[in-house]
């Protein structure tokens, strides 16, 4: 059941963020992936999708669905993350108040991405952008 999905995430549209993750969720369900795996992958991807919109003015997401795992690569040309260790800490956030008022910006996005995936790699350079690659195993 190899499948490749590609999404362009609009950096201006916070309210439509979640469409790509929602689509991936539907595809995974259709493929018969166990619901707890689908849930983990879609939460992790949604947090990444939201981060792209809030912090990086959008980007692209590639999803590879293989028989034994799901690989999600989120790539943006945003400001980059100056201190990844700090960004990974629960509660750390640079999100503005406007975003907080909408329920995001609690600094739990990256920790959730780590929690719900089997591996997560952050490749980031200030002024160039960020690529986050996450893998969820299908057991």
């Amino acid at each position, binding site marked *: 059941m190899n499948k490749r999905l590609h999404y362009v995430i609009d950096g201006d549209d916070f309210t439509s963020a979640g469409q790509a993750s929602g689509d991936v969720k539907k595809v995974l369900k259709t493929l018969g992936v166990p619901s707890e795996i689908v849930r983990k992958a879609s*939460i992790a991807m949604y947090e990444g999708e939201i981060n792209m919109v809030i912090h990086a003015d959008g980007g692209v997401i590639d999803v590879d669905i293989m028989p034994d795992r799901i690989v999600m690569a989120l790539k943006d040309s945003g400001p980059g993350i100056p201190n990844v260790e700090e960004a990974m800490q629960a509660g750390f956030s640079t999100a503005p108040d406007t975003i907080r008022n909408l329920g995001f910006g609690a600094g739990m996005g990256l920790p959730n991405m780590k929690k719900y995936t089997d591996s997560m790699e952050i490749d980031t350079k200030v002024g160039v952008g960020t690529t986050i690659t996450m893998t969820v195993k299908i057991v």
Partner: protein
Amino acid sequence: MTLNEVIAALGLEIVHLEDGERRVEDGYCGDLLSWVMGRAAENSLWITIMSNLNTVAVAVMADVAAVVMAEGVEAEDDVIRRAEQQGVNLLRSGEQAFALAGRLYAMLKEREHDPEV
């Protein structure tokens, strides 16, 4: 218990009901969306005062049984439309989150001890 039973027991107002027979196995209260996705169990009744399009998206990703907008919070038309599109059970109550959660907790615990109830 089923969502229909929860709706009746808590006197919830239906905004959009996609699947009243859905099982409710747990509950979660919270307005910070990443906390909800990090902590809420699937098939939870999610009680919140956060009513926007992202609330609906989070309900989808976290696989909650339903969203209850508590304390009289209103759902805007776009939120209702998104819930319809995404098949999210959306409910309302004028009661406070604390009161709703307390009653749900008691009902779920009761059934845990006596599944026949």
